């Protein structure tokens, strides 16, 4: 895999993120995923899909955690991350096949 680095180090343009104490606290407390880790998934190779009103991402953090993120992209492009968990084994295989 290409070198992983957050903050756009992968050469990918990052969106603006909408974090407040609600979604940040909740993500860390309920799912043990930090805001930085969620953002790293956007900077690193990933694959994204739409499910109804919600958006899903299979991504990877700089530390190698393979995560499924649930997020929203507002009309102005701002991204708000709501939820996350570790990928299942099958999702990891999908990630490895499709992540760009």
């Amino acid at each position, binding site marked *: 895999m290409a070198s992983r680095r957050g903050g756009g180090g992968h050469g990918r343009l990052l969106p603006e993120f909408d974090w407040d104490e609600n979604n940040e606290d909740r993500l860390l407390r309920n799912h043990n995923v930090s805001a930085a880790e969620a953002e790293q998934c956007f900077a690193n190779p990933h694959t994204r899909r739409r499910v109804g009103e919600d958006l899903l991402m299979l991504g990877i953090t700089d530390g190698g955690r393979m995560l499924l993120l649930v997020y929203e992209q507002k009309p102005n492009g701002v991204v708000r991350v709501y939820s996350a968990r570790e990928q299942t084994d099958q999702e990891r295989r999908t990630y490895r096949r*499709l992540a760009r």
Partner: protein
Amino acid sequence: MTRDRRDALLDQDWAEGWEVLPEAPALVSRPKTAQITLRLPSLLLARIKRAATARSLPYHALARSWIIDGLRAGEPPTTGVGVEQPQADQLNIKLDQNVLDQLKARADQLRRPYHRLAREWIEAALGREEVTLGLDQMPVGQRPIRRGARVRPAAHRG
């Protein structure tokens, strides 16, 4: 806490149908400046404003400098004063994107929310600043004397 619709999406293994799901919209790149919005007890915000008045600085700038100082010092804050109080007011602080990225990275290392880390650095620095400025014994409603301000002599009567 109740599980919402988005949490319910985590229950499913998405590998099977991933490729037939529609693509998510393209990401839009971010601006160069960023902002952090902290919820604070009203009293804490009043104390920040008082310290800023005493230093003749905008309170946003003073709070921003405390966050940057906290990042430079590298030590996690040890105070938690005010965290349990109702967070009635908001403080919006504009930061350089790289400062915000550093704050998030430090919070990630400490496994703490970066909003809380920033607030605790501000509280800790404020406590030190109040001691330096002699504000720690002064009620918050009392107007501090600005540093460098001339004290007018009392007018003489007849």
